C-alpha cells in the first residue's frame, strides 16, 4: 500500500476531478460576480469552501477509525457507483447521445437567471451569496467525496489526494482571475472520461480488497484495471454512436 501504483492514479483522479468541478463552479461564481457584484459572489464561494473543509476535517479522521477492509468495501462501492455513472455519461457524450457540457452556455444561462431577480439593493446581497454558496457546495461535495474516497482506500493517500484538490482549486482560481470568463476551453468532457475510468478502476480494486480478492500482481492490478476500463469505455463510444445515429435520422 502507498506505492506509486496507488498514489499516482489517486492524485491524478483527485486533481482532474477537482479541476472539472471547480471549473463548473467558477462559471456560476463569475456569473454571480458580473451580475450581482463581487462581494456576494466571493463571500458565498468562500463560505462554501469553509463548509467543505469542515466536511473533509470531519470525514477524513472518522474513516481512519474504521477497519480498512470495511472502509474499502463501503467507499469502494460508492466510488464504483459514482465512477461508473460518470463513465457512462462520458461515453454517451463522446458518442453524441448526450450534449457536451458548454461553459459559455452555462454562463449565459446563469447570467440571465440572475438578471431576472432584478437589480441588487445597497445592502448585503443574499441572492448573490446564496447562488455562489450553493454552486460551491454542489460541486465541492463531489470534490470532497472523491478526495475522501480515494484518500481512505490506502495508507498515506489522504494528504496527496487533498493536496491535489487544493492544487486544482488554485489553478482554476488563478486562471479564472486572469481570464475573467468561463473556462470554456478546458476539455471537460475528455477529463470526465479519464476521471470516470480512474474512479471505476479504484472502486473495483478496493471492493476486491474489501471482499478478499487476490488480485493478480497485487497493487499493479490498479494500472491494469485502468487500462482495461479505458479500452472498454473507448470501445463503447462507437457502439453507442452507431445505435443512436439511425434513431436520430428517423426522428
Amino acid at each position, binding site marked *: 500500500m502507498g506505492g506509486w501504483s496507488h498514489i499516482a492514479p489517486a492524485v491524478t483522479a483527485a486533481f482532474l476531478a477537482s479541476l472539472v468541478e471547480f471549473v463548473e463552479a467558477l462559471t456560476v461564481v463569475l456569473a454571480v460576480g458580473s451580475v450581482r457584484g463581487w462581494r456576494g459572489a466571493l463571500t458565498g464561494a468562500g463560505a462554501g469552501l469553509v463548509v467543505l473543509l469542515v466536511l473533509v476535517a470531519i470525514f477524513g479522521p472518522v474513516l481512519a477509525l474504521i477497519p480498512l477492509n470495511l472502509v474499502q468495501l463501503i467507499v469502494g462501492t460508492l466510488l464504483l457507483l459514482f465512477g461508473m*455513472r460518470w463513465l457512462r455519461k462520458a461515453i454517451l457524450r463522446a458518442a453524441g447521445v448526450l450534449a457536451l457540457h458548454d461553459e459559455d452556455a452555462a454562463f449565459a444561462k446563469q447570467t440571465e437567471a440572475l438578471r431576472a431577480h432584478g437589480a441588487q439593493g445597497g445592502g448585503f446581497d443574499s441572492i448573490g451569496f446564496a447562488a455562489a454558496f450553493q454552486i460551491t*457546495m*454542489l460541486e465541492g461535495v*463531489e470534490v470532497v467525496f472523491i478526495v475522501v474516497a480515494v484518500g481512505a482506500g490506502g495508507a498515506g493517500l489522504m494528504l496527496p489526494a487533498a493536496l491535489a484538490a487544493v492544487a486544482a482549486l488554485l489553478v482554476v482560481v488563478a486562471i479564472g482571475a486572469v481570464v475573467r470568463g468561463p473556462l470554456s476551453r478546458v476539455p471537460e468532457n475528455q477529463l470526465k472520461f479519464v476521471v470516470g475510468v480512474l474512479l471505476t478502476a479504484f472502486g*473495483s480494486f478496493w471492493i476486491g480488497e474489501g471482499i*478478499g*480478492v487476490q488480485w493478480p500482481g497485487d497493487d499493479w492490478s490498479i494500472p491494469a484495471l485502468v487500462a482495461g476500463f479505458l479500452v472498454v*469505455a473507448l470501445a*463503447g463510444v462507437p457502439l*453507442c454512436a452507431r445505435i443512436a445515429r439511425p434513431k436520430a435520422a428517423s426522428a
Partner: protein
Amino acid sequence: MKWLKTILEETIGLFVDDAAYAAAIVIWLAAMAALVRFTAFGSAVAGPLLFAGLAVILVLGAVRKARK
C-alpha cells in the same frame, strides 16, 4: 431550506441516477463477494470476473441509454 434539499438530492444523485444500472452493479458485487466467501477458488478468480462483469454492465448500460 430549498438549497439544503437541493444539495441532499444532488448528493444521492452522485451515486444513483438510474436505479437499474446501480442495482446491476451492486448485485454483481454481491455475487463476487459470495463467490469469494463460499468457494475455495473464489478469491483467485473473482478479480478478473469482477472486472469482466462491470465492463459488461458499463457497455450494456450505455447501449440501453443510447437506445432510449
